[in-house]
């Protein structure tokens, strides 16, 4: 029973990693850029929700929607202002710029909302679903349900819609996509908006289980590990990687000496990179001349 309980909290934690990892994958899939600031976008989303719901007093659902929309806007602004000039630059430069962006966003959050921890009011607080001896918090259920819905939604989007396929085309060859009439630049803006909105959803879902603070974005690094374990560029892989990392972490925290839980994600990552560098759902291959 205990094991099942840990498994469930692991799944819920894993879904958080998976949600953020999906943001990484989304941007990578469509723009071939790596956005290291995804965790910080999630943090910003959580703070936006805090502002809308706690300070401005909107309802939970309405505040949720306002958060998603405004974060979408933030995504567009970031893309236009910072990432657009970097199109065509080496991937290393883009990686560095998003790392810098992460630092800036954290400083902004610290300046606007302060560094003391806050908690987002939400309709789930303290409610627990009981199945036999198992007790699962509603907020954990919300995370799992939200992740499942988003994952399926994005999978269908990339598989069947014109826009989703155009995004994949833009990623595979920017120039060729441009020649066949795909508005590559607009697609990039859209992808960033989508990814930031996704981060906002993650932020709102995570806020009830963790506290709001500017450094909560560091979870993004673990999510990054999850994305790589799953195979960078694969949406189901991101979720699976997140689940693996989340569950392993919970078990390591219980059965191994202190310090191991904090490094589990990275150990898994290094092992994965050694054994199967392309990840579980491989979408990469060696570049040819």
């Amino acid at each position, binding site marked *: 029973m205990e094991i099942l309980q840990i498994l469930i909290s692991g799944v819920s934690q894993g879904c958080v990693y998976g949600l953020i990892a999906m943001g990484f994958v989304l941007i990578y899939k469509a723009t071939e850029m790596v956005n290291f600031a995804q965790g910080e976008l999630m943090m910003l989303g959580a703070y936006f929700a805090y502002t809308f719901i706690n300070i401005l007093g909107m309802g939970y659902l309405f505040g949720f929607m306002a958060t998603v929309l405004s974060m979408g806007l933030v995504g567009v602004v970031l893309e236009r202002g910072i990432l657009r000039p970097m199109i065509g630059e080496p991937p290393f430069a883009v990686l560095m710029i998003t790392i810098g962006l992460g630092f800036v966003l954290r400083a902004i959050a610290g*300046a606007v909302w302060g560094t003391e921890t806050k908690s987002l009011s939400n309709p789930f607080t303290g409610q627990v679903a009981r199945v036999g001896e198992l007790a699962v918090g509603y907020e954990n259920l919300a995370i799992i349900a939200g992740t499942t819905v988003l994952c399926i939604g994005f999978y269908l989007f990339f598989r069947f819609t014109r826009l989703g396929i155009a995004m994949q085309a833009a990623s595979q*060859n920017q120039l060729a996509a441009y020649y066949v009439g795909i508005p590559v630049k607009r697609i990039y803006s859209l992808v960033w908006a989508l990814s930031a909105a996704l981060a906002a959803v993650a932020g709102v879902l995570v806020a009830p289980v963790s506290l709001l603070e500017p450094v909560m974005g560091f979870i993004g690094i673990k999510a990054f590990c999850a994305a790589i374990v799953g195979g960078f560029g694969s949406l189901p892989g991101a979720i699976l990687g997140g689940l693996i990392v989340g569950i392993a972490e919970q078990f390591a925290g219980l059965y191994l*000496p202190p310090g191991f839980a904090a490094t589990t994600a990275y150990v898994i990552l290094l092992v994965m990179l050694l054994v199967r560098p392309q990840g579980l759902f491989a979408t990469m291959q060696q570049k040819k001349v």
Partner: protein
Amino acid sequence: MRFIFKTRYQQDIDLFKHNGQRFWYGVLAVLVLVAPLFLDTFYLGELSLVYIYAIAGIGLMLLVGYTGLVSLGHAAFLAIGAYAHSWFMRQGLPLPLSMLAAGLVSAAAGAMVGRPTLRMTGIYLAIATLAFAIIVEQIIAHWEPVTGGFRGQLVPDAVFAGVDLSRGAPFYYLCLLSTVLCLLAALNLLRSSSGRAMIAIRDSEVSAQSMGIDLARTKTVAFAVSAGFTGVAGALFAHKLGYLAPDAFTMLTSIQLLLMVVVGGLGSMPGVFYGAIFIVVLPQFIAIMRDTLPAAVGQIPGLEPGLFGLILILFLIYEPEGIRGRWVKIRQFFSEFPLYRKATHKRQKSYLRTERVR
């Protein structure tokens, strides 16, 4: 613009390209040698810090700027160097030997990381080194018998031949000497076949391989050498700090080191020093700003990392060649005065073709 007509191979690999350079570097050498005469203790300490960062920067520059491999985890090598040095000192090793040993331990760690990560490039390598750095941080925090854990440990004084070199002017000269030796070693490496091989790998891995360069070997060497230099810097850093604790070697430190080589100018050794001066001066500048600015702005928590991030972004967008690149452009502008063409330094954009199958 000075054009040198080279008639001998020796001229091509000379450290100084012409007499003008010899003169100005000579002036610089005299200035840094007499610096303790006219600088007070504080500025001398800051200048020592510039040298320490520069040594780490030389290491990182070899890796990022010359071999084209990105490391987000160089703080780990700095930490390994610092702790190893402290440990060797406590075992009674003389100072130079201990520093050398710290560098070697760090280099071994670098080779250990470098070897398995060879198959990776770009983000994979970056994230693997980041993971390594975080694991090292945890090991330091929990391996109490050797590292002192979270409580940290006192670094033994740097006493060599009866002279205490841990602070003030003696420490300054220790740092200066180490920097010069490291710089010479790096420059020598770069004009040897191994160094040329690294540059070839940076420019094109495929063509380097087809020229008969052993990719795995060269990359491992680059990683080990880079970690080794950073380890030596770590040894000096330990004396500078005086007290070692895990929070001195976080991800922020790694990013700071990377910022240093990017802002200084990738692929140039003078760039390392520009970058080192930059990251030493910036916190001081911020500290002064804090007092003069209104409290609401000056007291923002995390102002320093935020500003570091902002500067990184601005440099990458507007001057990816760093301070060194800007300096080259300004010099060229004046030497070609009415005929300077902006397009000379136009950046080549490469539009991506994916590495993905589906």
